[in-house]
């Protein structure tokens, strides 16, 4: 599996899961403005959560 990777992607996910402190969150916010890979990864995380929630509303 290949995705455009950035060393900060782990921090993006940790932030998404509420596992980073305020200082890291601020640094990450600055990084996200400049890093397309991390911004895309965050968008994917948001999209997956939305898809999971929609599916939960309508069980197959």
């Amino acid at each position: 599996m290949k995705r455009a990777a950035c060393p900060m992607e782990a921090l993006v996910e940790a932030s998404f899961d509420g596992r980073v402190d305020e200082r890291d969150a601020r640094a990450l916010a600055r990084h996200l403005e400049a890093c397309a890979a991390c911004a895309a990864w965050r968008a994917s995380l948001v999209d997956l959560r939305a898809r999971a929630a929609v599916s939960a509303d309508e069980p197959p």
Partner: protein
Amino acid sequence: MRAIAAGDVGAVGALYDRHGAAVRAFLIRGGTSPDDASDVTQDVFLTVLKVAVRYDGRPSARPFLLGIAARHARRVRERVRRWSRALTLYLAGGRPETELPDARRLRADRDAAFEGALAKLSERKRTVFLMVEREGLSGEEAASALGIPVNTVWTRLHSARAELTVTLRKRGAP
């Protein structure tokens, strides 16, 4: 849960009323058929009678119940895997086409793409993903429910998300 552990069988009914539907929905989302999910849900609450003494006392019993459900579901799916594969092939050949308006079709395509990608995950990754993303459990709650270290939850969750992203992208999912 304390009442059940103390032998109050009637308390299982109240627990079922509160969490039964959520447990069944979790099972279906995890790949258990609706029919099996109803049976497994019953089994989960029967199991609670035996294992309630092990409950760690947290405010919500839901993670505990989902952990039991995940273990039961795994056993059921292993049992039916062989014949269900043949049955699925048979049903796929006879499924009628249905006409849907554009918006509904797009939504259905989007949901189907996600369900397909979800089904491709290993059961362990899918279970963690659903516990966190659908049920809203914290990493610690999922870890406790499944009896695994919290770091394992984060690792499986990361793998699940990465695989889902790649699968959806590969399929050009809407």
